Every structure is written in structure tokens, then in C-alpha cells.
């Protein structure tokens, strides 16, 4: 359907919005402004909702004259969206919703203020890929991974994979950039006509043991994976991450990134693959990646009173698996915060799927609304811990600990809403 580039954007001519769409945009911006004035929040979601009430086809209109790329996943979509925006931004103007409002209202709000022909790099919630793809006819779709998250309110991961598969069949993008190491993503992406397969050696495979195609058993080996009952198997890859080196189009990218950890090299590999598929020069794109130092406050070192803290986000077992890589080295005390609000999922049983034992001998202060769940998890993990009521008292306990090193920032690793609370404490997203 979108095999040819959008003619409007090819000529650089923007279709002007219909009067109804213009009204919708204006109303949304007014509501968002009001929301900011009364300090309700950024206002982007509520503004977008008002716009969509007035014109429910607004997303189609706002993307009619631009290239659109969609990034979705359980983990890493915000980071990859930011990295891809930065990589593409070296060669063309872009607009993005990378602050995390990743359903249609947030996307509409982000696009409403942009030039009509800027390339849209859209982070899209896993459950919204289908409707955003249909509305935007995105020409590139980047699919990173699917794993357990917020099981009390989302569908099972297999059903999400099936939704993706149907969406890619119904509205085929020109290129899909997909994770060859995730059987669920692979199965979904196989429905698309043209796939760039990225292999980064996914370590979290606990959600993919059952084959999405036939419910047989998937066998994982060091070399890859294959279903033991049907012919679904790991496709051969076009872009590979091996020992920190990204191999793409016959080139190897070895440069350092500002963002820490293996997981961000994985995200960078997907961003490079997508940027390259969209025609950006690789070296230029890689330079763009290095400009990204933090994502919506993640990895930020901030001042809390007269103490420095480093904010880390990990929302689910797969996310913690990656975050623990950064937490298992040092010996200084750290703080872990867990909430269980709507956006976190109400059931924190998944804490038992996380190998917190990797923290080793570090002293941990548990905070957040579910600090007692954390404390029980730590107790059975033989992890040296204490419970505190809030971030302030947790920091005080850390400072009193004999293993505290005042020259280093205190790691504060949190899940979603706890992270947002801490970010607000230190001044929000800059």
C-alpha cells in the first residue's frame, strides 16, 4: 500500500489541513496550554484527546504529507525512538513523541505543532501499533521485543504478537526492522513483505518458550532458536550486534555511546538499521546516536538536597535483567523503588522473576508503595536490606551506611510511576 514514497512529501508540498482538522488542533493546543497553566501536567494527552473528539481522523491528516516511522516494543521503545530521532535528525527535520505519550492522543499532540513534512518518529504503545499504522501508513516499522508486562491489564504477549502480525498484513509498511532473536516478534514480522532482521542476542527468553505459530516448544541454543514442532526458526540476520560491535551493510560500528549498558547498544543497533533503511548515511547516523545522553530523565545524575543520585528505570523482568548489568558491579548502597499503580500493573509478583541476587552484597533500601513486597523478595534472596518510607529517608539511610561513598551518585532504580515521582522531585524532564 505504501510501497511508493508518499508523493506529497516527495515534492516537499504539504497538503493544508481541512478546517475541521485545524479547529481540532487549535482546541487541543488550548486545552494543553490550560492544563500546563494549572500545573496539571504537560497537557499533551488531554489536548490530543480533545483534538480527536473534534476530528477523529486527525492522525491520518497530520501524517498525510510526511514520512512516518513507528517504534514499538515492551522495552526500549522510548530509548530507541530517541536514538533513531537523533540518527535521522542528522540528515532531515524530524518530529517525535519521545516524551512517552505513546498512544494516539499523545502522538496527535506531538504532531500538531510540527511542520507538515517533518519525518515523524513515533514511539507507539504495543497495543496501539495496529491503529497507528492504519492511520499513518507508516513506511517503516521497528519492532524490538515482546515480554511480560502489566499482566493484569494487557493481553497475553502471544495475543499482542498476533495483533502485530495482522496489522502488518493489513497495512504493509515498506520496511519492517525486526528482532530475529525474539520468536514472538519474528512470527509477527514474517507477515510483512520486506524485513530487515536484527540479531542482538536477546538474553530474556522466558516468554517465548511456546511457539506463537503452533504452540509447540521453542528450543533456544547459542546459535539461535527453532520450534521443535513447526518450521518457525530464527531468520538469518542483516544487522548483528556481537561483543558490542554492530555489523551493518558490510560496515562495523565500534564507537562508544554516551548511554551505558549492553541494552543501549541493542537499541542503537535497531536505530541504525532503521535509519539506514530510510536512507541515512551510517557514519552520520552513528554520530547522531552519540548525542543522546539521557532519555526522559533515565540515567540522569541529579541533585537531591546535597546528595547526588542517579535515576534508573526498569519496569518489568526483561527490563530489570538489563538494568542489573549496571547494578551488579559496585559495592555502594542503592535504593530500589516499586509502585503498583495502573501504569505499573497492579500485581508485582514479577519481582520474583528478577534475579535481584545479582546485586550481591550491596545494601539495599526498599521504597515505593510496594516496598514490603520488595522486602520479602530480598529476604528470600538473602539480600541485605531495609525498608524506608520515602526517597528522602532512604537517602538518609544510605548516607549513614558504612559502605556509602560520597564521591559517587546513589543509584535509585525504580519502576514506572515511582521513577516519574522521583523525576518530578529533581525537576522533571528538561
Amino acid at each position, binding site marked *: 500500500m505504501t510501497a511508493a514514497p508518499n508523493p506529497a512529501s516527495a515534492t516537499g508540498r504539504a497538503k493544508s489541513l481541512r478546517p475541521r482538522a485545524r479547529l481540532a488542533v487549535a482546541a487541543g493546543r488550548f486545552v494543553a496550554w490550560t*492544563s500546563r497553566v494549572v500545573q*496539571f*501536567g504537560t*497537557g499533551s*494527552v*488531554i489536548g490530543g*484527546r480533545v483534538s480527536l473528539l473534534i476530528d477523529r481522523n486527525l492522525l491520518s491528516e497530520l501524517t498525510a504529507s510526511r514520512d512516518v516511522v513507528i517504534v514499538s516494543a515492551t522495552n526500549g521503545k522510548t530509548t530507541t525512538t530517541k536514538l533513531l530521532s537523533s540518527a535521522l535528525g542528522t540528515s532531515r527535520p524530524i518530529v517525535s513523541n519521545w516524551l*512517552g*505519550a505513546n*498512544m494516539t*492522543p*499523545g502522538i496527535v499532540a506531538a504532531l500538531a505543532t510540527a511542520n507538515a513534512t517533518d519525518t515523524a518518529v513515533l514511539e507507539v504503545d504495543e497495543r496501539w501499533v495496529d491503529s497507528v499504522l492504519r492511520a499513518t501508513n507508516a513506511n517503516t516499522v521497528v519492532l524490538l521485543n515482546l515480554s*511480560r508486562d502489566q*499482566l*493484569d*491489564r494487557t493481553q*497475553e*504477549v*502471544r495475543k499482542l504478537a498476533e495483533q502485530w502480525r495482522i496489522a502488518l498484513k493489513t497495512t504493509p509498511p515498506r520496511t519492517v526492522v525486526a528482532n530475529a532473536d525474539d520468536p514472538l516478534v519474528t512470527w509477527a514480522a514474517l507477515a510483512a513483505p520486506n524485513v530487515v532482521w536484527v540479531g542482538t542476542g536477546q538474553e530474556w527468553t*522466558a*516468554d517465548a*518458550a*511456546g511457539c*506463537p505459530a503452533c*504452540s*509447540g*516448544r521453542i*528450543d533456544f541454543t547459542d546459535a539461535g532458536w527453532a520450534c*521443535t514442532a513447526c518450521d518457525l526458526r530464527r531468520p538469518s540476520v542483516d544487522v548483528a550486534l556481537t561483543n558490542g560491535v554492530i555489523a551493518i551493510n558490510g560496515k562495523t560500528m565500534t564507537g562508544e555511546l554516551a548511554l551505558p549498558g549492553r541494552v543501549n547498544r541493542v537499541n542503537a543497533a535497531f536505530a541504525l538499521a532503521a535509519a539506514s533503511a530510510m536512507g541515512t548515511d551510517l557514519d552520520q547516523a552513528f554520530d547522531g546516536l552519540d548525542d543522546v545522553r539521557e532519555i526522559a530523565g533515565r540515567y540522569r545524575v541529579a541533585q537531591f538536597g546535597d546528595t547526588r543520585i542517579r535515576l534508573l528505570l526498569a519496569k518489568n523482568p526483561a527490563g530489570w535483567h538489563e538494568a542489573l548489568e549496571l547494578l551488579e558491579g559496585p559495592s555502594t548502597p542503592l535504593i530500589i523503588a516499586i509502585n*503498583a*499503580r*495502573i*501504569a505499573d500493573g*497492579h*500485581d508485582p*509478583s*514479577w*519481582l*520474583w*522473576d*528478577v*534475579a535481584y*541476587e545479582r546485586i550481591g552484597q550491596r545494601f539495599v533500601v526498599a521504597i515505593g*508503595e510496594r516496598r*514490603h*513486597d520488595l*522486602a*520479602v*523478595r*530480598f*529476604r*528470600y*534472596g*538473602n539480600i541485605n536490606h531495609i*525498608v524506608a518510607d520515602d526517597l528522602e529517608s532512604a537517602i538518609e539511610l544510605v548516607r549513614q551506611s558504612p559502605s556509602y561513598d560520597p564521591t559517587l551518585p546513589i543509584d535509585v532504580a525504580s519502576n*514506572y*510511576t515511582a521513577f*516519574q515521582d522521583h523525576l518530578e522531585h529533581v525537576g522533571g524532564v528538561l
Partner: protein
Amino acid sequence: MTSLPATRLNDSAVRIVSLYPDLLGTYGDGGNALVLSRRLEWRGIAVEHITVDAGEPVPDSADLYLVGGGEDGPQVQATRELEQSQGLHRAVDNGAVVLAICAGMQILGHRFPDANGTSRPGLGLLDCETIRVERPRAVGELLTTSAQLTTPEGIIELGQLTGFENHAGRTIPGSRSQTLAAVEVGEGNGDETEGIITGKIVGTYLHGPALARNPLLADALLGWIVGTSAMTPLDDTDVDSLRTERIQAARDHELAPRRSWRDILRRS
């Protein structure tokens, strides 16, 4: 999966098997194995924990088997493999203890519904049947009245059971089974009761994981193996705080503590 300490092979060690955590490990129930292992270790009792993934042979000589919750597709695959292997059936005949959670409980019964709602034969080890009912999925805190376990050594008090349920389907106990307790808050089996016990097989809808939130249930299962007198008191301060908080939360129907308007606007 949570990692467990390496344990030595020893004839006197209590052998605990986690069955198919790769298929039935979606809801954190793997933590039950860690809880059981630690509560034995802390009492100086040797333990050996064995993880059996799908496709691997099921040993029939272990003392305690754990079956967790999972998604509809993998649930059917797990039933198929357990039926073929018959290892769990032989273990139960030999007097092994089984704790089956949620989907695990459903497949151990006589019949259960698959992803399409079609009734399928279960393993028939637990005397119950799960049927599909037209009601919204039961998702939320589950709290029971004081639960009891009847054993040859007498009645063991388990206290109130607390956990998180997330399931469709209604489980009907058979004439050879007992239930664990009456429901105070939540859905449970669907008839105001929660849990199914047939012999030494205990089924429940409780996640949390169940044994992390309910240490008396953990000790009752272990007591079946090493004797209740070996279940000396442990420091459960952290667990007690958690139980107090969750029991209150369930009674307050407090699913989203301190949810502000900002949360709603932030993430629609």
C-alpha cells in the same frame, strides 16, 4: 527465573521440582520454589531444587512438585507433555506433595477450557473441573477467611490467605476434594470458596507468589514431607508487614493506592 543456590545431591535432601517454568512461569510463581528452599535451609534441612523445562523428562521420585500459572496456549502444551510423561502421575501415586497455581490447578483437574473456550481433558489428579463462564476476568487482590489443611496429624491452621488473582474460568470442586477457605474479597473458585485440595495436591488461584505471602501454607506443605515438628519458627517480620498491608488493601478494595489525576493524564 530466580536463581537458587546450588544444592548437593543427597538422598536425605528434600527434592523440589519446578515443572515447566518455561511454559507455566508467566505470573511470578517461580518464587514459590525459592520460598520453600529457603525455609528448609534456614532450618538446617537439606534441599535439592530441580527445574524441569518442557521437553525434559519428569522425575517421579521427588517430594514436592510446583506447577505455576501461564497463558492459554502453553497451558495446553504443558498438559500434553505431562499426560505423555506420566511422571507426575507416578509421583502422586508415591505420595508426593503438589502445589498447583491458577492455570496449573486448572490443568490438574478433570477438565479445563482452552484459549477458544473448548473444554479439554485435564490430568485428572485434582478432583475438580474448570468451566468457562460469561463474566469479566477476575483480576485483583484475593483474600480468604482463615484457611485450614486437614492432615493425618490433625488440622493445620494457615491463617488468612492473601494474594493476587488473574484468571477466567470457574473451578468446581469434586466430591473427593476440599476447599482451602471461604473468599472474603475477590473471586477465587467462583462459588465463594478458594482453592482445591485432593490428598496432598493443593490448587489455588493465588499469585503473589502464594507462598511468599502465606508462609503458613509453605510450612504446611513442607510439614507433609519432613513432619510438622520440624517446622520451627522463623523470622517472618518482613512477611508480616506485607500481609498486614495487603489484607487491609484487599478490604479497602485499594487496587491503585494514591492514584492521582496526574497519573491518569500521564498515561491514558
